[in-house]
Every structure is written in structure tokens, then in C-alpha cells.
């Protein structure tokens, strides 16, 4: 091999760059946090699968319907009525932003801006 | 030889944006008169101890390839992949983005898709894929691979002798892929089969055995120089001597041999010796190392090394301190980029120092070779020359950057500085046709044969077109250059495309302008053309 000094440095940089997922986790490996699910109910507004993937879409949809069109109720695929409200419907069962919302959002680095206007249950408690 | 079409007709078939309907792998090479070079005479190869194919010509239907030609080619390719990183890499990393496609002067002058640098390289890349790579064998044409056939050899011969190794494509390639490197390797591979062109090989034989490419014997060189000195005396009234093979001189001056005998190189030579006399330089020329140019480089690198070994033995023998090189293009490619590797270290020479100005040429401190333009520019900058630029007032000058000095050395400002100091009328050609983007003369790298004339006029068209522009707009009548091949071929090109433009070396202009001590009042330039305002006196 010729120019081995530079080539080896190059290979090391290449390895470091593309192996980032491996070595950046090194020594920190621990289980991913799981959101705390409500203990008193098993049913959400829609199916679990749907909620896990599409909750942001539903919330956005709710906001538009409620704030812009003045609708109040959401009828789910089972025909059940739900009041469209993050604080009063969702957070009624999911009692904590920290233990429910943030657990996933922080893990996957999502930064929804819900709580810029809404007040999380934790905050509510502080003021009561 | 075929008849050369008129300038108005030559380009009628050129369509830069229309491509053939057939896939390029299905297009067979066509040997049209005027577009290929004649095969080497077997005796030439015999004398140099190289294989050859006997008597044959490229237009023959069946080429007399040796029985094991495939094996030879495969081995030759493999060897070069193993020994030359540039070649190996350039075969691997091209993405066919097409940035180089319309940068080649041969493409611009022919519209032939195989003259796009990318396809030129693809001619060999496809064989490497088709013969050596599993992927390539599996998917064939889809992955760009194809089998090695006799037609491929013909194609290689045609298109790797339609490349002048000018490196213009390499400037635009995002990976710096240099077709010149590919062409050099491909000509070597063809050489291993015994395939070479006569025009490029005979000069190698002459250079090897006699010392210069045209075969000037030592006494002839001396006589030629004496003729030129006689002319100088006629024009300036002063007598000059040119030292030949003089031991103990400070500087060995080596220039392309064409400057000794060929018009208009001889005027450049007159310029050199006037300059040396003017400053009283302690120098010598050599009849042994009498060729700065290097036809070997157009054939194989081994030949290139063979031919220039003389220069350094001569420097040692004459005990000079350093070496000064004349105006030449590919010569300086070889001198600048290859000499130090081949012939160094040069502990028997000294770091070049101008005896007149005391400037130390630090950038040449290891190889101890200096370009004459660097040397002269330094003299002018220090005010060591008495110059009368008005003696070039009958000329409107533009400067043609030679491919090799531009893209393999980077000497742009020195010649311009000199021209601007010795001429009053200097204009540049359009921006995209000068400096690193300069166009080749169309006949470089050993292609300046008469049988190749049509292709030369096509390849030189982009350069000529830019000259035509300044000729019409500013009345340019002189195309200055620092390359011996340019001086040999540009007059023909100008005659064909832009009649009324003459070709000169930079030092010819210097020679015109130098006010020599004890000279008579000059009425003509070095070519016996009347100076401006002196028309009546001649």
C-alpha cells in the first residue's frame, strides 16, 4: 500500500463517520424509555396502531376543525363521540406530559409545539 | 492524401447536440482519409527494439495482430492498473456526468460522440468492465461493459490518436479525471501490440540516435545557427556568437530543436540569442542534448525518459550550474512534471540564480531548471533590459496559452508580462478560450502529420475561432505562443481559418524590441518585415 499514512487516516475517518451510530451509543446503552400508559382504560380515541402513527395528524385535524370551523365533537371509526380537546380529552387519560408525551418525543427528537399554547397537566398542578 | 474541404464546408456535418441513433458500442470505427495517422514503418520499431506488426495500414480490413493479442492487451491493462493509480482510479470513479463532453476541441470540431472525453475513456473502461469485472460480465452493456474484439483495437487506435493530451477536460471534471493520462496509457498498450504511428515514432528514433527529432547532425545545427546569426547581423548590424558545447558555462540552454531550423521557430531562436547577448549571459547550447521537446512522451513514458536522459548527462559533462529551457509546451510538461522524478536528485547542479538580477528561482530549487519566460520576466521586472516596444507597433498581438504549460505547469502571467512590456498592442482572446480554459492547437502530442490534416483543422477550430474573433474585432495579426508545436502547426491552422494572422514566439517579440548596444537603426523586424513608419526605408 502506498501513501499509507494518509490512506489510514482516511480509512479511520471513514469508519468513524459511518460507524457513528455505533460508537456514539458506546457506554450509554440502555433501554429506550417507554411512555406510561393509563392504567384505568385500554381504549383510546382510535385504535392503538392508528394513534401511535397518526396522533399528530389527528391533533392537527382537531385544531383546524375546532378553532377554524367551530366544530366540537369528533366521531371515531366506531361511531363514538369525543370532545376535540387536547387538555380535556387526551390528557384526561394520559395524565402526564412528561411521562407520556415527552418520553417518545425526546427519544426520537420530535418537537411539537402543542405546549406553547396548551398547558400541560404538570403545569396545571403547580398553579392549583 | 485526401483533399481538404474548404473552411466553409468543413463543419457542415458538425452537430453538437445531435447524437447518432445507434448505441456507441455498435458504431464501428471508420478510417476516413484525413482522420487517422499512418502506421509506423517496421524498421523504426526494429531499430528501437520494439514489437511491430510488419507492413500494414490502419485502413486495412484485417489488422495483422499477433496471435496472442488478447492476452497481451489484458496483461498490458492489468500491469498499468497495478502500477498507475491515476489510471486505475479514473477507470473506476467516472459517473458520466458529462461535464467534459463539450470541452474537447476534437468533439467541438467533429461532433463525433466518441470524441467526448467521457466516451473516449469509456472505450477502455468498457473493456475493463467487460473483461475483468463480474458485474460487467453479468450485465454487459447495461453496466457499460463489452467484450474485447479486434474492432475495439481499431477504435482505440483511431480515438486515442484523436486526443492531444491537452487536459482541458480535466479542468472541468469534478474528480479531475484526466483523459491525457488515459491516452498515455492507451498508446502504451497499443505499443505493446506493435501499433504506433509513423509521424510520432520517426522523431523518437532521430531523437534517440541523433539527439533531436528531425535528425539534425551537430555540424548542421551549427550551420543553421550561423545562418540565423547572419540574419541578425543584417537586421541589427551586430555580430553575435552562440557558444556550442562549451564546457564550464554557467547555464545550459535547451530548446526544442525546431527553433534551430523551422520557420517561425527560428525567429524565436533569434530572440533568445539577442537576449543572451544583450545581458552578456554565460551560457552554452548543446548539439548532443539538442532537443528540449520529447516525442517519446507521445508514445510511451519509457521512451520519454530515454530521450531526455541526454540533457542531464550533458549538464554534468559541461559542468554547468543550472539549465534554462526554451519555449515549448509538452516539453515543459515533461520537464516540469516528470524530470525531477526520473532524473533527480541533481546534486551536481546548483539552485538556479539569475546572474544578472541575483534572483534565486526558489520554485525550481530542486530540479534546477528554469523556464525562459520566468527568466526574462525577472529581467524585465528588474529593469535590466533596454526595450523599445514601439518596434512591435506593426503587430497587434494576442497570446495563445499552450495546453501543457497552462494545465500542467501554470505559467500564465510570465509570458503576458513579457508581451505587455515589449509590445504596445496586446489584446486577450475571449475569457473561456484562454488560460486554464485554453484550446489546443489541434495537432499536439504527435498528431501534426499531413495525412491528418482534416482532423487537425477540425481540432484546431475552437482555437482558430477565438483568434478570428479578436482578428475581426481588434485587427489582431499576431498570435504569440510559447510552444514549438504551436509554432509548427498554428500557421497552417491560421492560413486555413483566419488568413492574415501570423504566429510568433514570445521571445521573437522580445528580440524585436531589444535595444542592442552598438546596433544600427532597425528598419525591419526579425522577419524582414518593415517596422511601423519605416515602410519606405526598406
Amino acid at each position, binding site marked *: 500500500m502506498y501513501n499509507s499514512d494518509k490512506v489510514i487516516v482516511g480509512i479511520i475517518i471513514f469508519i468513524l463517520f459511518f460507524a457513528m451510530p*455505533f460508537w456514539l451509543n458506546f457506554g450509554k446503552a440502555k433501554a429506550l424509555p417507554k411512555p406510561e400508559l393509563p392504567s384505568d382504560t385500554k381504549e383510546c380515541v382510535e385504535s392503538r396502531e392508528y394513534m401511535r402513527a397518526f396522533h399528530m395528524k389527528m391533533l392537527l385535524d382537531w385544531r383546524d376543525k375546532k378553532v377554524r370551523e367551530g366544530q366540537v365533537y369528533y366521531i371515531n371509526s366506531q361511531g363514538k363521540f369525543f370532545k376535540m380537546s387536547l387538555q380535556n380529552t387526551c390528557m384526561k387519560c394520559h395524565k402526564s406530559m412528561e411521562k407520556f408525551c415527552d418520553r417518545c418525543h*425526546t427519544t426520537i427528537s420530535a418537537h411539537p409545539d402543542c405546549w406553547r399554547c396548551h398547558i400541560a397537566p404538570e403545569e396545571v398542578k403547580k398553579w392549583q | 492524401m485526401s483533399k481538404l474541404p474548404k473552411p466553409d464546408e468543413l463543419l457542415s456535418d458538425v452537430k*453538437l447536440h445531435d447524437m447518432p441513433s445507434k448505441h456507441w458500442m455498435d458504431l464501428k470505427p471508420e478510417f476516413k482519409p484525413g482522420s487517422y495517422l499512418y502506421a509506423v514503418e517496421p524498421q523504426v520499431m526494429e531499430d528501437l527494439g520494439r514489437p511491430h506488426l510488419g507492413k500494414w495500414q490502419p485502413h486495412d480490413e484485417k489488422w495483422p495482430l499477433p496471435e496472442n493479442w488478447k492476452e497481451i492487451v489484458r496483461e498490458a491493462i492489468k500491469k498499468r492498473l497495478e502500477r498507475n493509480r491515476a489510471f486505475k482510479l479514473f477507470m473506476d470513479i467516472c459517473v458520466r456526468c458529462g461535464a467534459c463532453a*463539450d470541452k474537447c476541441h476534437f468533439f467541438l470540431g467533429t461532433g463525433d460522440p466518441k470524441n467526448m472525453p467521457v466516451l473516449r475513456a469509456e472505450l477502455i473502461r468498457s473493456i475493463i468492465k467487460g473483461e475483468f469485472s463480474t458485474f460487467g460480465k453479468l450485465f454487459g452493456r447495461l453496466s457499460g461493459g463489452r467484450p474485447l474484439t479486434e474492432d475495439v483495437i481499431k477504435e482505440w487506435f483511431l480515438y486515442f490518436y484523436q486526443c492531444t493530451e491537452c487536459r482541458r477536460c480535466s479542468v472541468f471534471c469534478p474528480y479531475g479525471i484526466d483523459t491525457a493520462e488515459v491516452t498515455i496509457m492507451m498508446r502504451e498498450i497499443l505499443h505493446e501490440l506493435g501499433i504506433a504511428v509513423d509521424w510520432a515514432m520517426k522523431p523518437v528514433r532521430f531523437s534517440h540516435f541523433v539527439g533531436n527529432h528531425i535528425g539534425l547532425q551537430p555540424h548542421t545545427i551549427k550551420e543553421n545557427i550561423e545562418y540565423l546569426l547572419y540574419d541578425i547581423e543584417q537586421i541589427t548590424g551586430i555580430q553575435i556568437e552562440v557558444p556550442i558545447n562549451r564546457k564550464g558555462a554557467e547555464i545550459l540552454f535547451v530548446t526544442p530543436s525546431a527553433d534551430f531550423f523551422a520557420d517561425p521557430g527560428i525567429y524565436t531562436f533569434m530572440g533568445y540569442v539577442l537576449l543572451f547577448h544583450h545581458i552578456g549571459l554565460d551560457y552554452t547550447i548543446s548539439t548532443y542534448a539538442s532537443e528540449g521537446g520529447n516525442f517519446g512522451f507521445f508514445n510511451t513514458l519509457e521512451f520519454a525518459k530515454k530521450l531526455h536522459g541526454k540533457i542531464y548527462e*550533458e549538464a554534468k559533462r559541461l559542468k554547468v550550474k543550472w539549465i534554462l529551457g526554451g519555449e515549448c509546451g509538452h516539453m515543459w510538461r515533461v520537464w516540469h512534471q516528470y524530470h525531477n522524478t526520473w532524473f533527480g536528485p541533481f546534486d551536481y547542479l546548483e539552485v538556479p540564480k539569475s546572474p544578472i538580477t541575483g534572483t534565486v528561482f526558489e520554485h525550481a*530549487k530542486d*530540479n534546477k531548471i528554469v523556464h525562459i519566460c520566468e527568466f526574462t520576466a525577472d529581467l524585465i521586472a528588474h529593469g535590466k533590459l533596454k526595450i523599445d516596444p514601439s518596434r512591435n507597433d506593426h503587430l497587434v498581438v494576442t497570446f495563445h496559452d499552450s495546453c501543457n504549460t497552462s494545465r500542467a505547469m501554470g505559467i500564465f502571467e510570465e509570458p503576458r508580462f513579457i508581451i505587455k512590456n515589449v509590445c504596445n498592442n496586446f489584446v486577450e482572446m475571449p475569457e473561456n478560450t484562454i488560460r486554464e480554459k485554453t484550446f489546443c492547437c489541434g495537432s499536439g502530442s504527435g498528431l501534426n502529420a499531413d495525412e491528418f490534416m482534416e482532423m487537425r483543422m477540425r481540432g484546431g477550430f475552437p482555437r482558430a475561432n*477565438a483568434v478570428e474573433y479578436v482578428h475581426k474585432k481588434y485587427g489582431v495579426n499576431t498570435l504569440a505562443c510559447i510552444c514549438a508545436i504551436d509554432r509548427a502547426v498554428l500557421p497552417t491552422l491560421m492560413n486555413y481559418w483566419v488568413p492574415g494572422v501570423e504566429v510568433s514566439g514570445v521571445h521573437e517579440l522580445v528580440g524585436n524590441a531589444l535595444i542592442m548596444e552598438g546596433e544600427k537603426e532597425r528598419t525591419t523586424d526579425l522577419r524582414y518585415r518593415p517596422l511601423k513608419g519605416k515602410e519606405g526605408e526598406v
Partner: protein
Amino acid sequence: MNVFFSFIITLILVLIPVVGVGLLGLDPLFGIVIPYVAFLIFFFGLIYRIIDWARSPQPFKIPTTCGQQKSLPWIKHSRLESPFTMKEVYLRMFFEVFLFRSLFRNLRADLVGKRLIYGSAKWLWLGAILFHLSFLVIMLRHLRFFIHPVPSLVDIIAKVDGFFQLGIPPIYHTDLFILAGLFLLLLRRLVDSKVNYLSHASDYFPLFLILGIVISGILMRTIFKVDVQAVKELAYGLATFSPVLPSHKIGVLFYIHLFLVSVLAAYFPFSKLVHMVGVFFSPTRNLPNNNRAERYINPWDYPVKYTTYCEWQERFRDVMEEAGIPIDDEWCKETAEAQKQA
């Protein structure tokens, strides 16, 4: 034909995980085995290529000089285009690799009647830079799935990339840029007759493949959403060498995305895509233009036989004597003796 072939191949590749995961439920194969294998091929394949290039020496110092050489002190030397020191070479390489400087020079030539005219042609550069830089940013952004906790730099990149907060989740600019870049590059290959003529199927294939990756990725983010937490579980498992299938099934679209990425990674070392590392090896760019100041060694350089002065003098002795050109027998004696000693 070339375009069609590559397109069909890409479609088939899309269908493989549809069948494999959607119908046969081979989640472990597509989620764990194939990605690992593909990554290994990518990794060791590329290292092999690097070493393979490095095994061939570069015999000569052959930089392409695109600017004034360093010569006399009063002449301005072009440090970037004709680097003299290694520092300047690194600078040149930086501009070459990250900003595609050579591509930026691109011109377009047209023959109008008997006149050649040149125009600026930056489309290729634009398409290339949009595509490559976006790809880099997108790759870095994806680290959020592989690393826990997410490094703040990755977080910042993602935030900047979604700065205008269009939609929820916000649309990344690089997603749009990479699409624009890919379409530009594809369009160029289809529309420009010259580039079209010289393109192989293997030139279209990576474009379609990466388009497939980008489109499946964007669709996952915007329309056919998948369980991102589950994705992270899978990716994190892969990155910590404790691969597990997530507790919740991930949509097929994700497996299409992952499979195409795996194909790209495995295809990479054996295709023209190696230009990613190859560009660093390019001798016309990564060597300084200081040939006459610093000697470059060719490891396989060998002595060649040339016509020595003495051989030459013997041949021309008569004419030289007649012409009064000095004869040098002393030198011949000297060299003959030196040869004997050696």
C-alpha cells in the same frame, strides 16, 4: 431502454419487501439480517476499494494546474488552483469535495453557424450540490433513530432543517432540495442529448434507487405514517448490537425504505458511487504543483538505456571535428572508469 431497465429494477426492488414483509411476514429478515449484511458489504467493500487504490502507486506528480504557478515573488500565485504547499492542496480539496468547484466552472458550447459560443452552465453543479449536501444532512438527521439520547447537534440540524415549521411534523428543506436535485440530475440525463447518449443503465439505476428512498421517506413522514417510536426501537437495537423487532409492527412502507437503503449500501462499493471516496485519491487534484521544488519518488522507476554522450560523439566525431565543435574524450574516459568501478 437503459432508463426503462433501471426503472423496472427499482420497481422490483420495491416489491420485494412488499411481498417479504407484507405477505410473508419476514420482518426479522428485512429488519435485521438484510440491513446488517448490507452495512457490512458497504463498510468492508469500501475499505477494500480504498486499499485497492492505495495498492497502486501514483508514479508521477501530475496536478492539473488551473491557475498561476508559484514562481517569481512578485507574480500573484493562485493558491487554490495551483497549490504549492500541502496546506493549499487541502484547501483545494476542500472546495473540490464540498463545493464542487471544478463543476462550477462548467460551460456550455454551441456552434452557431461558423462561430463557437460559450455560455455558463451551472445546472449540473446546482443539481449535484443540492443532491449531495442534502443527502449528507439527511444522513446526519437520521442519527436520531440510532442514538439515545439524541445528540444535541443532530437535534439542532433537524431544527434548522425544519426551520419554517411548515406542517406537523414540519417539512424538512433538505427533503425538497434532494428531490429537486435528483430530478434535475435525472432530467439532464434524459433531456441533454449528449449525456443521454453516454449514459448506461447503471447511471440511471442509482438515481431511481435514491429517488425511491427519498420518496418512501417523505411519504412516511407526511402521508402514510409509521410508528416512529417502533422505528427507533429497531434502529437503536441495530446500532447497539442487540437487535430486536419492535413490540409494535411497523408499516410496510418503512421496510421498503429500509430495503432500498440496504440495496444502495450494498451496491455502493461495486459501482460508480465509489466516487465518494475516490475523489480524495485523484492525483490531478490532491498533489501540489511544486514539482521543481520538491522531488516526487516513483516507487517502480527503473533506469533506461539512452544514447550516452560518448556513443553519440563516436558517431559524429568526424563531422564535429570538421565543424570545429569541441571533442570531449576526457569525459568518456571518466564515465568508462566510473562504470568499471560500479
